[in-house]
């Protein structure tokens, strides 16, 4: 019944449901364990099994088609035509793998950092994972919305219970800000349903709605996604939430949650409201460029490591939205690559801050300065991720940013030049951080270097940073078909 856009799953078992709900199952099992150590091991095993299942998914993924794959279809609320539909394409496949690999890493990074209520912590993490994968797999608006909102609850609890000193303020601000955007998303979803009579996401694409309708729907979508990204005027929840969240929470926030906003633009705004997207593109590009420059300058003034990285996310996500609204294949590919790169690099930087925070109990740059001779292994990892963060050639971010900048120059020279300046500021604040941490102080302190567990969980991220930096083609080729198809369908709307 749905063959024109959804290729049904032929693997013999519902692999997308399995990937989505395995973490939840693991989480429910954890609730019955009583020993903290057993809880951690069980959470780790759950995370690894989910990762393995997602690798099976990747191994069977066919990059030569733009149709949604591994489809599953179940009728859910027939009277309103709401269905349980899952499926992935080249845009989502990497985002899912990013989520599944980060979960075991986050479990490992919380191994000793979380001492209180370990069981609830791991439960929240695994529920988060289910919701995050669900967002990327769902092809039904209501299903998507349920996962999208359900994510808020465990994330809120992660910040509110295990967060830093200002967790009360940060968690409430995060929740209300995000919910504010989401209710407009819901209204837009209902509006589309009343026009098309379906909640199916692929069926709502490119339906030729009137421009007036598109503009309103685009604005409702844009508020929700711009808050999640976060784009320039809507970014104020982010520093508070990132800074106060426990390390694992920051990693999830930066690496996956922010991607959902950009994913929303790619999956909803562009195909459903193409006219309005083109109409608003100059504004979106302007906001992206402002975010890049503004984020960079704010970073230069930070003394708190976590805050600095949080603000650098604002700048980096500016590149992502810039790429999306350039309406070029380079821009799209760069944006999606940047989403993955930012997920890996910024996630890794938050992990690094978490590692040093466990030892010095301070996130201030000055307190952690001069570590070059004390903890050389740590500084090595931190150095790599820092230079990757400001897009040093040979690292992953370089590839993504160059794609985005090429795409931007095709459209607007001014935006391109400004983005390049933003990239230079990024180098300035990241090198400033690195210089302080490595050479900033002379005194000798007793700080232990990274242990094996910490090396193990950072190693896959290092591998990714260098692999994509030197050889991005395999990644690009998987996503190319879906993005090219999106651009082809957009073309009639771009003058």
């Amino acid at each position, binding site marked *: 019944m749905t063959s024109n856009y959804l290729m049904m799953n032929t693997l013999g078992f519902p692999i997308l449901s399995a990937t989505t709900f395995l973490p939840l199952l693991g989480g429910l099992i954890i609730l019955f364990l009583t020993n903290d150590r057993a809880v951690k091991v069980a959470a780790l095993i759950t995370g690894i099994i989910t990762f393995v299942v997602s690798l099976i998914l990747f191994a069977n993924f066919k990059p030569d088609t733009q149709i949604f794959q591994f489809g599953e279809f179940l009728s*859910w*609320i*027939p*009277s*309103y035509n709401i269905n349980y539909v899952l499926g992935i394409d080249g845009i989502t496949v990497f985002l899912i793998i990013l989520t599944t690999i980060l979960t075991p890493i986050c479990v490992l990074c919380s191994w000793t950092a979380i001492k209180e209520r370990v069981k*609830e912590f791991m439960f929240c993490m695994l529920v988060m994972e289910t919701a995050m994968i669900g967002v990327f797999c769902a092809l039904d608006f*209501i299903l998507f*919305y*349920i*996962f999208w*909102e*359900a994510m*808020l*609850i465990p994330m*809120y*609890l992660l910040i*509110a*219970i295990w*967060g830093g000193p200002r*967790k*009360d303020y940060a*968690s*409430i601000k995060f*929740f*209300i800000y995000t*919910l*504010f955007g989401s*209710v*407009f998303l*819901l*209204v837009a979803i*209902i*509006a589309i*349903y*009343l026009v098309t009579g379906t909640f199916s996401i692929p069926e709502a694409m490119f339906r030729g709605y009137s421009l007036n309708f598109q503009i309103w729907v685009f604005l409702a979508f844009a508020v929700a996604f711009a808050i999640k990204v976060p784009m320039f005027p809507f970014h104020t929840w982010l520093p508070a939430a990132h800074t106060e969240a426990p390390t694992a929470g920051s990693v999830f926030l930066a690496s996956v949650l922010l991607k959902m906003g950009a994913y929303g633009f790619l999956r909803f705004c562009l195909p459903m409201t193409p006219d309005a997207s083109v109409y608003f593109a100059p504004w979106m590009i302007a906001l992206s460029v402002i975010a890049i420059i503004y984020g960079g300058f704010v970073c230069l003034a930070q003394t708190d490591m976590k805050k600095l990285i949080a603000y650098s996310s604002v700048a980096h996500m500016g590149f992502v939205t810039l790429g999306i609204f350039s309406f070029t294949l380079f821009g799209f590919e760069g944006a999606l690559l940047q989403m993955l790169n930012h997920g890996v690099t910024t996630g890794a930087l938050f992990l690094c801050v978490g590692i040093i925070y466990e030892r010095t109990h301070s996130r201030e740059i000055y307190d952690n300065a001069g570590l070059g001779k004390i903890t050389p292994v740590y500084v090595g990892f931190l150095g790599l991720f820092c230079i990757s963060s400001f897009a040093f050639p040979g690292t992953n971010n370089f590839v993504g940013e160059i794609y985005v900048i090429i795409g931007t120059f095709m459209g607007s020279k001014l935006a391109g030049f400004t983005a390049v300046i933003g990239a230079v500021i990024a180098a300035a604040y990241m090198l400033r951080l690195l210089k302080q941490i490595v050479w900033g102080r002379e005194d000798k302190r007793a700080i232990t270097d990274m242990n094996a567990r910490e090396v193990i969980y950072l190693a896959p991220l290092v591998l990714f940073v260098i692999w994509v930096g030197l050889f991005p083609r395999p990644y690009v080729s998987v996503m190319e078909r879906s993005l090219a198809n999106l651009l082809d369908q957009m073309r009639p709307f771009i003058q």
Partner: protein
Amino acid sequence: MRNDMLLILPELTVLLFSVFFLFFSLGDRKRNPAAWARPLSLIILGVSLLTVSEGGELFSGAYRVDLFSQIFKAMLSLGFCLVLFMMENKNEINERYGAEYYMFLGFSMLGLMMLAGSVELISMVISLEISSYSLYVIVPLRKGSTKVQIEASMKYLFFGAVATGIMLYGMGYLYAISRSTFLADIIKVMPACMNQPAGIIAVVFTLTGFFFKLSLFPFHFWAPDIYEGASNTTTTFIATIPKIAAVALLIRIVMLAAPGGQQFINILIALAAVSMTLGNLVGLVQRDIKRLLAYSGIAHAGYVMLGVLSLSSDGNASAIYYMAVYLFMNLACFYVIMLLSRNNDNVTLDDLAGLAKRSPLLAFVLAASAFSLAGIPPTGGFTGKLFLLMSAFKAGHLYIVIIAAVNTVISIFYYLNLVRISYSRAASTDAGDIRLTFKEKALCIIFIGLILYTGIFPFSIMEIFTAAL
């Protein structure tokens, strides 16, 4: 005749329940009435579930038994049953009045059940008054009762009397227009009159009696004081069960006006918008949780109106669905209050501090019901609200949909406050762990299950509701 008895079997069972406690109150005061009330309430629930598919008319057409009324009776008895099982008899009501308390609860239930079946104006008034007068009596019944309780019950009585008065005035107009007190006759002439002031006044005034029960603006003034003043069980009852019956009658009466004039719908939209905005804004500053829930109830009355004012069977089904969910989530929230206040005191936000440590299960129940009241997936509150918004949107009322959406954001602040304080604030040192008995744990898990079930699997329940209309 036997068949007629079968038709009103649920009502007869409730009547029996009350009569039983009437005699019980004459006997030995030492005996615990709760031990009898719970099994009896289960029987009431069983009877109303068994007779759910009955159909027929009684009392020369004044009283109709159909799927619509039977479903409401089943929902009422389910709520009644849950309230009785939640009730902690210790320290709540003076033991001397224990049996009478159950008797009046039973009479109130009887009135509400009859209300669900009434299709004639006079019988509606009688049923409504049976249920109201019993409640007027039990509001001041609280152990260590002070002037606060008396004030609350006086307010309830006076506001109730005024609302009934206005309702009777509206009914007078209905009779004047149609020359009949039967809804079946009124519906034939009303739609033509809905563009005239007389028709609008007639329907809107008739609705006031039920707006009062639902605590919709501008008939909400009693709610905060009653919630604060009455004992926890009484509040739980008043906050949930009469509202279900009120929605049944709102649907019945508003359908008289279908397809309805624009002015009439505008009045309902305005009431809904003011009610939800006012409830949520005032809810923000409350410290007493029962008062907070009173304002939340005012806001939810506004949400339910979204379904009613759509004037479609979709809209009505969503309103009923939302009431069912509201029953569960509100009861869950009140249950936490009951268990937290072992001495029958009112619970403030500060008493919640450290609840997650003192009793993780209770904190989880509170979180589930708060998120559901706020309308966050995957809880029933979200699914219900989604249905409401869709039906109002479909009927073309975009503005009220946006107002409701914005209100969701406002309300999240105080609902989240409940969760935030119980999870992230440390308990005061003298607060020990809360130990729950097996029955209490079971009820907690049932509530969590119901809230999640209504959120994730709404279709079968929704189909029954749609069939009933």
